[in-house]
């Protein structure tokens, strides 16, 4: 059959065509492409590895940061509680100091008052004594003069005293 017989002319052209195509593509075509594909694959693998490492590092950094943060928080708590204690202590001290001082002042004031009172009382006593002596002097002088007058004098004195009393 005609179809199964290869035609020598076509065989020749096929040999030439395929030979040239094979030569050109095997020299300048596919090796370039294959090389680049391999290189890109290597590059992608490398990039993936680098990305993985970076991720891991990031994870570490995050963990570290959290650790530092929690430490800081604990420190803060500790400081706060310390400060609170200190404040309470200071306030307490101030309070005792104040009450001690107040007590002292009060005591001193009381003493002063007492002193003033005593002084006033002794002054009054002295005045009363002087007055009594003066009255007694006047009475003594009147008695020596006249009886009637003595009586009047006594009345008047009594009145005066009453008036004073009332």
């Amino acid at each position, binding site marked *: 059959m*005609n*179809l*199964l*017989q*290869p*035609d*020598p*002319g*076509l*065989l*020749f*052209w*096929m*040999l030439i*065509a*395929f030979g*040239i*195509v*094979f030569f*050109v*593509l*095997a020299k*300048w*075509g*596919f*090796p*370039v*492409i*294959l*090389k*680049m*594909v391999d*290189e*890109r694959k290597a*590059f992608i693998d490398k990039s993936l590895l680098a990305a993985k490492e970076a991720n891991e590092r990031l994870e570490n950094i995050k963990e570290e940061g959290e650790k530092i943060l929690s430490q800081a928080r604990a420190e803060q708590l500790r400081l706060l509680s310390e400060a609170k204690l200190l404040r309470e202590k200071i306030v307490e001290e101030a309070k005792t100091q104040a009450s001690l001082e107040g007590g002292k002042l009060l005591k001193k004031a009381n003493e002063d008052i007492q002193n003033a009172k005593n002084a006033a009382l002794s002054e009054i006593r002295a005045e009363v004594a002087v007055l009594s002596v003066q009255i007694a002097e006047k009475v003594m002088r009147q008695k020596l003069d006249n009886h009637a007058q003595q009586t009047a004098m006594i009345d008047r004195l009594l009145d005066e005293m009453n008036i004073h009393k009332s």
Partner: protein
Amino acid sequence: MNVFFKKIFFSLFLFLIAGMGSIFAQDNHQSMAQKAEQMDVTELILEHVSDAYWWHIITINKKDIAISLPIIVRGSDGKWHLFSSSHFEYGHADYLGFSIAAEGKYKGKIVETNTDGEEIRPLDFSLTKNAVSLLFTSTLLIILVLSCARWYKRYKVEESSPKGFVAAMELLITTLLDNVIKPCIGKNYARYAPYLLTVFFFIFINNLIGLIPIFPGGANVTGNIAFTGVLAVFTFVIVNIFGTKEYWKEIFWPNVPWWLKIPAPIMPAIEVVGMFTKPFALMIRLFANILAGHAIVLGLTCMIFITVSMGAAMNSAMSVLSVLMTIFIDVVELLVAFIQAYVFTLLSAVFIGLSQVKGHHAKD
């Protein structure tokens, strides 16, 4: 999706109407051309799948429009002749003692009639339809692959990854590399990858161009035994030239009971035959698949013209059926175009891989 189907049905409807118009037009000629219309389908299909000395494009009003191709022959006088195939007037005329045989052993080929009146075949290196198609697709393939390679040269790995056509080519290349070449050949794959990739793309592009029915395509290049034969020979040569010692040992002294080898070398004989049947199977498989594809499409198309004599109704019904089936087969052929290229490459890779065997002890 609905719109899509509507469009398809609408175009089919239009086609049907147009088809009926042409059928009615044909009816007028029918009585006159009835004999001519009763065409020989086998002849027509064989003519279309065979090689030709001109590139037939279309026939209008019984006038053939074709591209004449250069004829290169060496006559019995030892002189080379180069002339256009238009001198043969599609096989109706002689030129310089050469003619195209109408029948006989060399039917459709250029023959030279010697003094005894016998037809002898001269050395014929004419650029036939298949040869021209082959040169065209080869140029196309070289341009396509080199343009891809240029892209890779222009951009650095870190800069950019390919897009569009280059990416599609890379997809095919990496698929073949990872699924076929590496697993079949093993660690030595880089040496054979360019050959196998060239084979794949060469077959694939010729298959695809062959499926295009109009001018630059349509030649049945991959369905020609010369085409598949040369490829098979290339694979055969590569398999046997780079075969390892172990490969040759397994052919001539295989690991079988001695009585299969000593008195009569039964196993070696089978192995030697096997050496040749492998590439032979490659050759026949590709040839038969593509030839059958072209023949089916042509046969289905011919259905329209065969049923002309059965009346307009039958003819239009068969025309619709024919178009639907042809579309279906054409889509299948697209798949086959890829699959056959893939299978040829795969089997070539397997045969090369088999010739790369190392001794069983030397494994790993």
